[in-house]
């Protein structure tokens, strides 16, 4: 038996020199008395989270399968997502569970997404827990953000969208930019609807700290989501500052991290869809390197405007589905600078 051990270890050392040898490096979530409060108090909304994360993970594997007829594939995925909205799971899937092929291609991307989903769960739990007074919520949020940023290999930057996506990623200059949106318009709509629903829940939690009123408010948001937002989705990826203005002011680092995560989903889909990108893993990892937290990022967190400071989270106003919004303003500004340059 022991004769084989050196051979085995030599083989592992040899394999570890392979270019795509990668460690898993998973870290457990931060413990707190608030853990799972959102699951216990807002179960229906939690179930919608399972659909959002299923869709975000599953589409990567669908794109990797390179469907010939993207129009049909787009429609099928959209219909399946709507079916899941009516038949959600009871527990939240890891991205490896729903997008296993993508996990084999780019583990670090999946790890970054799951790690950020954990932050998202932490903050939902903190905002739900009625044992934490409103004045102390930010202390617990900051604790969760500190823990999140303690894994810089997979933690998205808390700097604003303008800094991370426009400057570091150079989104509009990338050859793959918009390739997913052009080919998968219906699925893009679903994701943009989820990017309204996810932040607006935080805003309702902040405005309604009383648990009973919060539960009513969140249920109303869920109804609004199904009845108004899915049939008439936002016409762009909404930024946190537009949908949860008060929460973005309270926790700007978290707001930016979620914007960067949402854009990262889009970047992955663009890269997977684009025929111009041959080495998809390399390109995705290049983007992660640009989007993860860098020294000094936390000092920039508050550098963004709040265009709808008095937004009522229980309505779906025209400004969400019409006009350019913050995305239009930022991209117009970037284009103007490039033309001047």
């Amino acid at each position, binding site marked *: 038996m022991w004769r084989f051990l050196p051979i085995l270890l030599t083989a592992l050392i040899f394999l570890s020199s392979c270019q*795509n040898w990668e460690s898993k490096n998973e870290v457990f979530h931060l413990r707190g008395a608030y*853990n799972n409060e959102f699951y216990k108090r807002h179960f229906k909304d939690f179930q919608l989270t399972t659909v959002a994360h299923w869709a975000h993970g599953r589409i990567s594997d669908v794109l990797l399968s390179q469907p010939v007829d993207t129009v049909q594939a787009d429609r099928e995925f959209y219909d399946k997502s709507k079916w899941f909205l009516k038949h959600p799971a009871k527990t939240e899937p890891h991205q490896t569970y729903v997008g296993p092929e993508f996990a084999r291609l780019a583990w670090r991307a999946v790890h970054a997404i799951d790690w950020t989903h954990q932050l998202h769960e932490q903050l939902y739990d903190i905002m739900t827990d009625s044992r934490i007074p409103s004045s102390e919520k930010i202390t617990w949020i900051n604790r969760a953000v500190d823990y999140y940023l303690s894994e810089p290999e997979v933690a998205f930057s808390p700097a604003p969208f303008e800094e991370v996506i426009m400057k570091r990623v150079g989104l509009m200059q990338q050859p793959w930019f918009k390739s997913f949106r052009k080919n998968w318009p219906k699925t893009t709509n679903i994701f943009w609807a989820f990017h309204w629903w996810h932040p607006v829940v935080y805003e309702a939690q902040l405005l309604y700290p009383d648990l009973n009123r919060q539960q009513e408010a969140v249920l109303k948001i869920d109804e609004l989501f199904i009845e108004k937002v899915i049939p008439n989705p936002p016409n762009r990826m909404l930024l946190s500052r537009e949908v949860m203005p008060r929460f973005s002011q309270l926790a700007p680092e978290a707001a930016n991290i979620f914007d960067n995560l949402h854009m990262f989903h889009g970047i992955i889909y663009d890269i997977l869809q684009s025929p111009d990108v041959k080495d998809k893993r390399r390109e995705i990892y290049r983007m992660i390197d640009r989007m993860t937290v860098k020294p000094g990022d936390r000092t920039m967190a508050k550098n963004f405007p709040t265009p709808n400071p008095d937004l009522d989270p229980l309505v779906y106003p025209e400004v969400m589905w019409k006009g350019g919004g913050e995305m239009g303003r930022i991209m117009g500004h970037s284009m103007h600078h490039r033309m001047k340059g």
Partner: protein
Amino acid sequence: MFKHLNRPIAVLVLLSIGFFSTSFAADHRNLEEGFPTRTEDAYPIAFKALEFQAGASYEYEGDDKTHVGEFEPELKWGFMKNAHLGLGTPLTWRENGDHTNNGDIEIEGFYNFNVETQSLPAFALKTSVTAPSGVDSRGVDFQLLGILTRGWGQNRLHFNGGYTRNNGRESGERADLYTFGIGFDRPIDLDHLFVAELFVDQAPKKAIDPLFSYTLGLRKQLNPWSVLAFGLGGGFGAPEAVDFKATLAYQLGF
């Protein structure tokens, strides 16, 4: 059953049961021995995670016409990235009154070398030491298990190759024992996982042919912090193989 245990083991069992009242975050797809299959996949629990697992099984050994019940509580701790430590003790009840080894303490160390990629499977090594703390137990046994996980689509195959140094052997028993197993898993939906396995073990007694065993099972994620597993199986090959086995197990991440 508890009268056959020494005090530290009883404390471990009671502490473990106490954890049922706390929480959080189970590891839905991470295959572990006894849950409900023997198969290990190549992944440990997450760094900083704690996991409690308790499995109850019933076996019928047709050759001896004996009913056997087993309960095994186990605690795991992700003490560093990509590795965990485990501590468990099997508690066995046999119809024939043989309580040998009942209450041995097993300590395991698990290390994962890499995550599976498009070109490479995931590799892991598990070592465990069984201390002879149980009834009429002799010698410290040592186990080494090599694990390889390879998937395609949503399916995964797991190859387990094990070696056991049987230090507390009796006359007529092998000093070195080898095991080989193949496990398979596939999601049924987001909350349920199907698992299956086939194992072949060298029997401890030299005169006995290899023992084959199989299990089919289901894992159900109950909520974000716990998973339930149920398995049915049996054996073939040597007459000493287990005729029927049923397992029910519960896992709690916290």
